[in-house]
């Protein structure tokens, strides 16, 4: 499978102010919790513009920044770094459920 | 920067009557002059010989101990907060007020934020430079933000430990 691994592809991310949820900037300039909706910058220059746009829309989020991503043939994007992968897809182990253990 | 003074009517901005003297400027014969710590050290005698009050501006690394003998001769001390998170001047304030008995105006400079006021009042500050919106209103309320304190400090408030002792002794007697 061909992947664009160059590191040139970038999306803008932040945590939402009200609840801390991880969000990405979409093409319409809204913050979405779906990575597949994120606006992609395909080179350095558009990356800078994307970050400026994100900072201009930062009223309801905290400290936007750029995240390097890869893209599959089918357009699926995934962050390059482990940290950003974890931010995008959540914990890498099963958390204990609230009612995990019942007792008599 | 707008100046606020504790106790001024409903937290209004107050006039700053002090003339901030550059280190190389001539010392005027009268009027209220404010000088740097370095200038004070170098021209102490001349400054004291003139008519009119003198104030000193300190960096938060300046040794306040050096002013111990002069606290009664000074009418203003300005302590600086280069950023919110740099708390050295709180210690300077407590030493000036508590240990050396300074009674003049103690001013916080550097752009005070309203969330610092309660701490500053407890350390003996009574005037504040701030650019923050709503600072005056916050100052008016700051003394009553916490009706209980745990530490004895220069503001003279009784800490909880003392109030408890008093209460117990009333109960006993």
């Amino acid at each position: 499978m061909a992947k664009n691994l160059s590191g040139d592809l970038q999306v803008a991310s932040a945590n939402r102010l009200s609840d801390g949820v991880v969000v990405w900037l979409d093409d319409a300039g809204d913050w979405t919790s779906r990575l597949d909706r994120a606006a992609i910058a395909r080179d350095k220059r558009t990356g800078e513009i994307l970050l400026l746009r994100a900072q201009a829309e930062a009223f309801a989020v905290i400290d936007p920044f750029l995240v390097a991503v890869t893209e599959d043939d089918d357009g699926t994007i995934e962050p390059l770094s482990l940290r950003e992968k974890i931010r995008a897809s959540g914990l890498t182990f099963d958390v204990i459920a609230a009612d995990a253990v019942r007792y008599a | 920067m707008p100046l606020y003074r504790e106790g001024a009517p409903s937290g209004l901005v107050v006039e700053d009557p002090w003339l901030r003297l550059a280190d190389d400027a001539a010392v005027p014969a009268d009027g209220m002059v404010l000088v740097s710590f370095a200038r004070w050290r170098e021209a102490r005698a001349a400054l004291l010989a003139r008519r009119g009050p003198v104030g000193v501006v300190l960096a938060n690394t300046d040794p306040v101990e050096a002013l111990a003998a002069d606290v009664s001769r000074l009418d203003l001390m300005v302590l600086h907060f280069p950023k919110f998170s740099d708390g050295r001047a709180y210690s300077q304030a407590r030493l000036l007020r508590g240990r050396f008995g300074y009674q003049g105006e103690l001013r916080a400079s550097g752009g005070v934020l309203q969330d610092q006021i309660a701490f500053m009042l407890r350390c003996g500050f009574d005037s504040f430079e701030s650019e923050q919106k709503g600072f005056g209103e916050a100052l008016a309320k700051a003394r009553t933000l916490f009706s209980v304190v745990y530490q004895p400090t220069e503001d003279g408030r009784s800490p909880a430990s003392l109030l408890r002792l008093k209460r117990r002794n009333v109960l006993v007697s």
Partner: protein
Amino acid sequence: MPDTYFYRYDDYDRTLVSERVDQFRDQVRRRLAGELTEEQFKPLRLTNGLYLQLHAYMLRVAIPYGTLSSRQLRKLADISRKYDRGYGHFTTRQNLQLNWIKLEDAPDALAALAEVDMHALQTSGNCIRNVTADHFAGAAADEIEDPRIWAEIVRQWSTLHPEFTFLPRKFKIAITGSPNDRAAVRVHDIGLRLWRNEQGEVGFEVIVGGGLGRTPMIGKTLREFLPKNELLAYLEATLRVYNRYGRRDNLYKARIKILVHEVGVEKMRADVEAEYAETRDGLLGLSDETIEAISQQFAPPDLPPRSNLAGAVEALRLEDRDFALWLKSNVAPHRVKGYAIVTASLKPAGAPPGDASAVQMEGVADIADAYSQGELRVSHEQNLIFPHVAIEDLPAVYAALGRLGFAEANVGKITDIIACPGLDYCALANARSIPVAQRISSHFAGLARQHDIGDLKIKISGCINACGHHHVGHIGILGVDKNGVELYQISLGGDVDFGKTALGTILGPAVTADKVVEAVDSLVTTYLDSRGDGERFVDTFRRIGAEPFKDRMYAAL
């Protein structure tokens, strides 16, 4: 409901905490309305225990000196269900972390905490942090005096201290009242050790400048013997010296340990004593009455006489091997005959260390009510402790814990792993900690083997900040990042036992995540092959050194 045998808030304490909640509510409102920038708001939320982690805000709830009532624990369960995802993480600083708090809910969560006299004050930020103490305090057979009395006195003095809320860096104080230090006082900014001098008086040894993190250091003695009633005046003098002269130019050099290291302990002592000469006769002197009033609140429960020789315990011990092992590892001597201290292991094989679900917290609270005077402790080893259990009740407690999944007989053993949240949660992390702990703990799950291996402390941190205390692990594991790959640096021989406090020796190049279990397995094998009579892992390491461990480990990978 049973009464509590530790400090009870009075109206002063309650007023202060609730006024603080009101203040924070207003600060959150201003932030959400855009009146405060993140830069301005961050220090405010931090001093209220609210962090921003990778996926959400995290609220760190203070559990002062690790002491908790069943009622408080139930409330924590409740809060975790209502405002979080129904579980919490007990930390190495005896706190509880809730990982999924919303900023807009945080004031309500804090108000709920205040209902049971709890708060999240000063669990973060550059202030005096929540004071920790021996988790066996008030129950241990070897105790000279209950350190929690002093921890409470320090808690009050340090809460919203106007002079020390913007220190160069965070400041951690730990107190122990036993010769067997369970509070790790030599690796804190200030460690206080109660001891009895030749005249028979009890006072503090004041230890300064210890700490882990990027530059680990063992604390040095600042004052051999400090009369107890002078504690606050002495602490104020020390903190003032630190606040004025501690470095602020470099985040990594801002802890008091660096100041002590740079000026030398003699100069530090001279400065503190000079300052103290001025403060000692001031208002901070503690009157006997004040000390007495607080001591009374820690008066131990009147434990009804119970038998030391419980037939049922003996019978079960002979018939159930796991129970026999549990008695050995999870039950410690109590100062009262007929009683014991029981540790509930929050490290079942393969589970995230230190995590408890809301249901588990409630179950633990029920056990505390039925068998431990309604009282609990949180240990810095991330376990929960029942301080006052009758020996006769041990089988019942064991069974009840078993139903919760907390009866693993592994306290102090290889699967009783300390791990920080790591890259799964933490914004500062280089690598994951929890999955590594889970793999090691699954690998060594068998109890017989664990008990054969004996005492072995594995401590894992996801970055150099060392929240997992890896420097002082018998085996320390530190996550590092090399070009986006998680690697783990392994060290041996760390220890926090008093008099033996030592920092681990790094073995060599870091290993990849999939090799960590094999590496640990090899270290254990080397130990088993080389150990002398009665030698623990760390004793063998001290005798034979790092080489044999190292050679075999790298050969095995």
